């Protein structure tokens, strides 16, 4: 990272640490939502932006992360402090298994297969009523009291998201991340150069799934509920859109996108019922005229 | 009838044609010679509007066609029989021909089938299952049905058995007698020069030489550019 970028990140962290003492609680929650969304979007972007694999099924892993925490509480399987770290592991394991199947298909068919898996898990969550409470979802005191109060909850989320993003950043800028980009640019050539492309794609899918699962577990910390729509394909579209609006070709893009999306959403939902219209129009404009996303508007900041 | 004046053509950022100029007069058969990758196909694509020229002008019968869409260029009287297996393979031969026929010109399906009687025999077959010679026939027939006054032929002998190449020469002479002008890109120099009035030699996106058939047949460049003789290379002892 360039010095300027380091300074920027440090400054942003300072602002975020100060936030609970400055912002009203309502806005603190918006910010917390934005942090979780940022992780979800950055994790999805490991596939979409870095590897060139368009997945419309990342909500499956997000939802599995959320359900891990919620089900562990509902059935008294494990305490929160065990269930929470287990969430990304279980989501990653499911991603490994589904990825091994979905990655047999290419491009559009891959996107649709991930969508099918996401819908399959959605149906499971809805129909396994005895286990999941079905469409009613699970809600209750599944999170330690400490994390429910605004400031500690915010700091917990901030700490987890920061650590996870640091790790993701590391992965994106490691040789592995470089290999993923090479796959995105020219899959055949990457293979001809000796790269085991299929293994790398599966590794990326698994990692992305694990980080999405972590984001889902954080969602539960925040809202103390899990319900089937968390696994739906519409939910899967969200991190992709956030990443695209922010800019998929840089690491920072999805983070800016998440901040922008969450604030715009929460502000507009109050003002107008046309949030979807605004989002659609914005996405249309970005896709047609600003394929680099929000980050491409900043001068001299192409790579993050 | 066709004037190509100093066109530049790019694929993305790579500069493929650099100031290519050539002309075809009514009734002429012109051959464009050059190795693979010399820019012959790109020249044809630019003339037909498939890869529009970024600079320069293309005029056909004194009408500017440089920026017209391909179908408008076809309707202006230019036809292209492209190289390779460019047929609608899932359509039958009859469907291919019906699709290609435009009204208001001398070529009807009946007349084309009279020129290529073989096509009538194989009319119900899917084009994907034709032999190389049959495909070439169908491609030319298709181009004729668009009623061109100037026909562009890209590598008509490519992949054809020698017998079929001779036959192709016969068809082309027949078409020429019908008053059609022809611009043909070929690697088979002897075949092309036996038919043509004049020719151009292309190399690396430029026109290297222009001349009559007899001039080109004897030109030393032809031997060096198309055949096997080594050329002097000045700075080559690195």
């Amino acid at each position, binding site marked *: 990272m360039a010095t300027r970028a380091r300074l920027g990140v440090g400054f942003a962290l300072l602002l975020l640490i100060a936030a609970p003492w400055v912002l009203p609680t309502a806005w603190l929650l918006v910010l917390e939502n934005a942090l979780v969304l940022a992780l979800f979007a950055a994790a999805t972007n490991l596939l979409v932006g870095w590897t060139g694999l368009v997945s419309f099924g990342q909500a499956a892993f997000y939802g599995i992360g959320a359900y891990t925490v919620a089900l562990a509480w509902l059935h008294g399987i494990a305490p929160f402090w065990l269930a929470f770290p287990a969430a990304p592991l279980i989501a990653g394991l499911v991603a490994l298994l589904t990825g091994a199947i979905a990655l047999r298909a290419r491009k559009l068919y891959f996107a649709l297969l991930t969508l099918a898996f996401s819908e399959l898990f959605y149906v499971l969550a809805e129909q396994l009523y005895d286990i999941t409470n079905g469409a009613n979802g699970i809600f209750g005191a599944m999170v330690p009291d400490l994390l429910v109060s605004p400031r500690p909850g915010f700091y917990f989320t901030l700490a987890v998201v920061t650590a996870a993003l640091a790790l993701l950043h590391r992965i994106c800028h490691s040789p592995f991340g*470089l290999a993923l980009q090479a796959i995105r640019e020219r899959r055949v050539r990457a293979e001809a150069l000796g790269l085991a492309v299929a293994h790398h794609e599966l590794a990326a899918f698994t990692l992305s799934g694990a980080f999405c699962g972590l984001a889902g577990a954080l969602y539960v910390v925040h809202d103390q509920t899990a319900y089937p729509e968390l696994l739906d394909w519409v939910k899967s579209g969200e991190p992709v859109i956030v990443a695209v609006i922010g800019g998929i070709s840089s690491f920072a893009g999805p983070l800016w996108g998440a901040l922008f999306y969450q604030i715009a959403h929460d502000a507009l939902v109050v003002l107008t019922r046309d949030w979807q219209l605004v989002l659609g129009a914005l996405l249309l404009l970005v896709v047609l005229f600003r394929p680099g996303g929000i980050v491409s508007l900043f001068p001299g900041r192409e790579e993050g | 009838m066709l004037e190509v004046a100093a066109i530049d053509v790019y694929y993305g950022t790579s500069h493929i044609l650099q100031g290519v100029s050539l002309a075809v007069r009514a009734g002429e058969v012109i051959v464009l010679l050059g190795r693979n990758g010399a820019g012959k196909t790109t020249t044809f694509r630019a003339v037909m509007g498939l890869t529009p020229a970024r600079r320069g002008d293309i005029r056909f019968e004194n009408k500017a066609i440089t920026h017209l869409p391909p179908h408008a260029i076809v309707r202006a009287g230019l036809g292209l029989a492209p190289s390779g297996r460019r047929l609608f393979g899932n359509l039958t031969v009859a469907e291919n021909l019906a699709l290609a026929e435009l009204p208001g010109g001398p070529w009807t399906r009946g007349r084309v089938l009279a020129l290529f009687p073989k096509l009538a025999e194989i009319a119900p077959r899917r084009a994907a299952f034709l032999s190389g010679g049959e495909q070439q026939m169908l491609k030319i027939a298709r181009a004729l049905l668009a009623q061109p006054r100037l026909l562009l032929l890209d590598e008509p002998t490519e992949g054809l058995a020698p017998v079929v190449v001779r036959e192709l020469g016969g068809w082309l002479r027949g078409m020429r007698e019908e008053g059609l002008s022809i611009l043909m890109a070929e690697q088979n120099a002897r075949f092309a020069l036996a038919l043509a009035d004049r020719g151009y030699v292309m190399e690396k996106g430029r026109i290297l030489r222009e001349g009559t058939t007899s001039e080109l047949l004897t030109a030393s460049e032809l031997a060096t550019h198309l055949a096997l003789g080594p050329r002097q290379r000045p700075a080559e002892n690195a």
Partner: protein
Amino acid sequence: METLLDVAGLVKRFGGFAAVDGVSFEVAEGSIHAVIGPNGAGKSTLFRLLTGFHAPTAGTIRLAGRDIAGLAPHRIARLGLAQSFQITTVFPKLSVREQVAFALIAQSPTPWRMLGGLVRVLGGQGVMAEVETLLAEVGLAEVAERRAEALSHGDQRALDVALALATRPRLLLLDEPTAGMSPFETERMVAMIQRLAGARRLTVLFSEHDMDVVFSISERITVIHRGRVIAEGDAASVQADPEVAEVYLGSAA
């Protein structure tokens, strides 16, 4: 000289059409060997068979004694056969240095080992130094920070070769290395091939339409036509071969 590549009875059929129809030839270690032939002769298919992008219908391909016919492309690459492509296939959005580094680390076997930092995994400065050496060797040191899509055509082809070299090949396969190049770029490429064969003791097998290039640098030439070998020998004998002349000039109608 030892035989590095031994192709015997190679056949590739697509449906009923034999694109490669019983091709046999040998490439001696350390030599510069050309495969030529008119358009559609089967050169591209032959190269795809050698690199594993097609599986042969019949025949064997031995690289240093080991049969590589039908192996996956990345396996063949790891066994020491690298190629540069006819249509330039560098990675457009990566910088020149990044993609040469990638090509070097792609030789590392597992994704998991690649998760750490770049320099550490590469074993310290050594590999980054190798990147710089390679860049200097192909004349790209000055444009190392640029994205490949911003390079000239000649530089892209040079980068293509650098990527192939990064796999530390024994045999370098070049598919029409000077296609679409200006005369100046062509000379640069020819000089580079000769330098690589000389300094790196690399075996080079290439296809080419520019006969000046073919005859000025090849030690041995294999001519194929309609999927078969019709002549083989040094420049003089191939030039003198009447069948070759027939194939290239065509017969009058």
